[in-house]
């Protein structure tokens, strides 16, 4: 992190290599839904709420491909970058901003600890 200000905004959650390629890890938040951290084949990291917009399936347990994950329960495809269900399904999962620096993964503190997860934030468009 470049400076203290950054450090106040971003929280390091893990090293990128702790997430399997084409796989996921789960961040457990006290008092909130889990967050799933995904790593794609081309080495990008995405953070999405670990609740499928369909019936709440744990997205972290799905199969990652391209820029999406297939939910393990009923096979919806959820876009990792915007949380939107891939058409024709309709729905949206909250996504979190991710920053990667020197092989470390950071999430925004305010997004992580917001009292009630503003599910709608990334979905309102």
């Amino acid at each position, binding site marked *: 992190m470049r400076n203290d200000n950054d450090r106040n905004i971003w*929280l390091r959650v893990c090293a990128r290599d702790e997430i399997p390629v*084409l*796989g996921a890890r789960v961040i457990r938040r006290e*008092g909130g839904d*889990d967050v799933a951290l995904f790593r794609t084949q081309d080495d990008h990291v995405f953070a999405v709420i670990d609740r499928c917009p369909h*019936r709440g399936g744990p997205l972290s347990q799905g*199969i990652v491909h391209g820029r999406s994950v297939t939910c393990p329960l009923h096979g919806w495809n959820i876009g990792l970058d915007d949380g939107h269900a891939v058409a024709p399904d309709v729905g949206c999962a909250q996504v979190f901003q991710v920053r990667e620096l020197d092989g470390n993964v950071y999430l925004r503190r305010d997004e992580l600890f917001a009292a009630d997860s503003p599910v709608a934030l990334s979905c309102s468009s």
Partner: protein
Amino acid sequence: MKKPRLVLIGNGMAGVRTLEELLKLAPDLYDITVFGAEPHPNYNRILLSPVLAGEQTLEEIVLNDWSWYREHGITLHAGKKVARIDRASRRVIAEDGTEAAYDRLLLATGSTPFILPIPGRELEGVLAYRDIADTEAMIAAAARHRSAVVIGGGLLGLEAANGLKRRGMDVTVIHLLDSLMERQLDPTAANLLKISLEQRGIAFAMSRKTEALLGDEQGRVRAVRFADGAEILAELVVMAIGIRPNAELAEQSGLHCNRGIVVDDTMMTYDPRVYAIGECASHRGVAYGLVAPLFEQAKVCANHLARFGIGRYAGSITSTKLKVTGIDLFSAGDFMGGEGTEEIILSDPIGGVYKKLVLKDDKLVGACLYGDTADSSWYFKLLRDGRNVADIRDALMFGESNLGDTGHGGADKAMAMADDAEVCGCNGVCKGAIVSAVKSKGLFTVEEVRKHTKASSSCGSCTGLVEQILASTLGGDYSATPKKKPLCPCTEHSHEEVRTAIREEHLVEMASAMRYLGWKTPDGCASCRPALNYYLLSTWPHEARDQPQSRFINERAHANIQKDGTYSVVPRMWGGVTNASELRRIADVVDKYRIPTVKVTGGQRIDLLGVRKEDLQGVWRDLDMPSGHAYAKALRTVKTCVGSEWCRFGTQDSTRMGIELEQALWRMYAPHKVKLAVSGCPRNCAESGIKDVGVIGVDSGWEIYVGGNGGIKTEVAQFFCKLKTHEEVLEYAGAFLQLYREEGFYLERTVHYIGRVGLDYCKQRVLEDVEGRRALYARLQDALRDEPDPWHEPEKAKVDLRQFKPIPITVKDPAYAE
């Protein structure tokens, strides 16, 4: 860089379909130029009949309008007929002098209608029935004249006659033979058809030979004269007596032709730069005249034009339906029968129903249905798949619904169904929802319906029904699913092609397999990755590396995911036998990890449900029992009965046999789950009759049954062989399962595998070929050697243990200070 140039001659159904397929595979590969003799964009020729009958308009049957060509950067010369191909300088020259140079040339010139070489054929009012111009001329004639004669009582002739009648003309059909549609119908069905058309007011002149067409002073046809001198009035004459492959252009350019442009299995002509497809092509001596085979050819041809070079076209079995509203007629295959065939016939002349099925060597080889075509797609599927029908022979005639099916394969139930009738039980989709999606979103394939409505996307047992709803909503039978289905939308290749490539090209890595097969997505999807992973591992055991991230979560976590995200754990109990110490450990684990539900499964073991993922490793360790693989496409349980050790009827020690089988086969991954059962006598308390391999003890040894299934659709296992010793049972069962492992498609249970390849084939490989059987069993043992138990050797099994540890975040300070 300059792109290679592809020129297509013939802007018809086969040629343009090839372009569509090609654009899907390699959108930017070629500069494409199309010459079409007709001044129209590509349209659906099949639907000219409904247009003639006034049921559809010409606008409605356009398949690709002008903008499609523009959007894809295709140069279209519509209304320009190619006059010459210069293969030396690689140019085509149109009649008006327009030229185009090519690196690859595709000929799709269709066919030319055959015109009787009789006097008067050049008179005004004498037409063929082939294209928009013919159809428009017929519609115009119907507006001005009264009497029409159609020469030829085949499919096309009858559709023409029906259309003209519907437009108010007096129509007589002249047919040379005494039976209509003799190439599609047997005499009985043909007669029923004739009666029904007569009731609609069409007249017939059967067994009559036309000698001449007579004209009036203005040079318009006025009558037809027969060979016996009789005449009938005719102000319009439509000749529909057959078509000839339009190979003239190719022939002039020196390409080898023999009743069509001769092509190989890749649709290439004798000149490697030139391909031919559609009705103008002769493949293995056959020029097809229906669109379903042409569409299959188009796929293969596009694959080669796209330089993937792996598709092969091996010919098609075709089926026929007559597009005359209100007449149900279907025929396919060898419906006439003959030497070595048997016929099953149902005839109800009063009800106007006639059905004939032709069997040969226990397989359906032909069908001819009149009046009730409800089961036509089912019969056609049996025919194409070459499924052995010995087991359902008695019920065959009464149709699929009579088999007590929940919808497999489907029947023409589609039409009769109410809109609110449920089609897909898994996803709760009704017929109305499918119909409206097809209409409003313009869906054409089952795949699209699946995507948009989810119908048939789960267990798949309603696929046949969905196909039919699609067909009946769209009309016409041209979109019938080709026999080869792509594995998933990421590829054009079928399971078969993928398996073959992996084996023959010695592909051991997923990335190289995808590259070699031209996958359209960089890392596949949730459907193809698990399939590829299985194919690689089963084809090259010890060599291919497992990719856990390409497995469904159950096989990655080695437990079954539940609806709330927890997991279930089913430890292995050999042959369903347990003891006090195992039960005590289970009880302790349940207490220690506060497992909410303990249940006896239908597979004779115990299921611990509601285990948190973090606890899985601890639960496995404390249970200290082998993995039950209840989560895997692998050997599940071997159910047993008590057998001769205790039971007063037992003839064999089924419990021991079951344990031996389970210990020999556990850890065996397969295309789908595999279940076995062993019963000690024919009372069969272990339900061996509905298992992938069922073993039944009898006084003199063991009977082996294969291909049973107790799931979505109950299938009774078929008798395979009778054996004497335990060792034999192990070897034969193992060899059969290895065959399935090597050849089965991913998610294909044994019953479907056997349905596809035939029981005889399995018998030949396992029973008759002694060396082959031993080799199969040896390969199975080799594959299983060293296969780890993922619960207790997780490192060796490449279980990613990080998944069991969530990343904790504890900071709750509102100031977010670290």
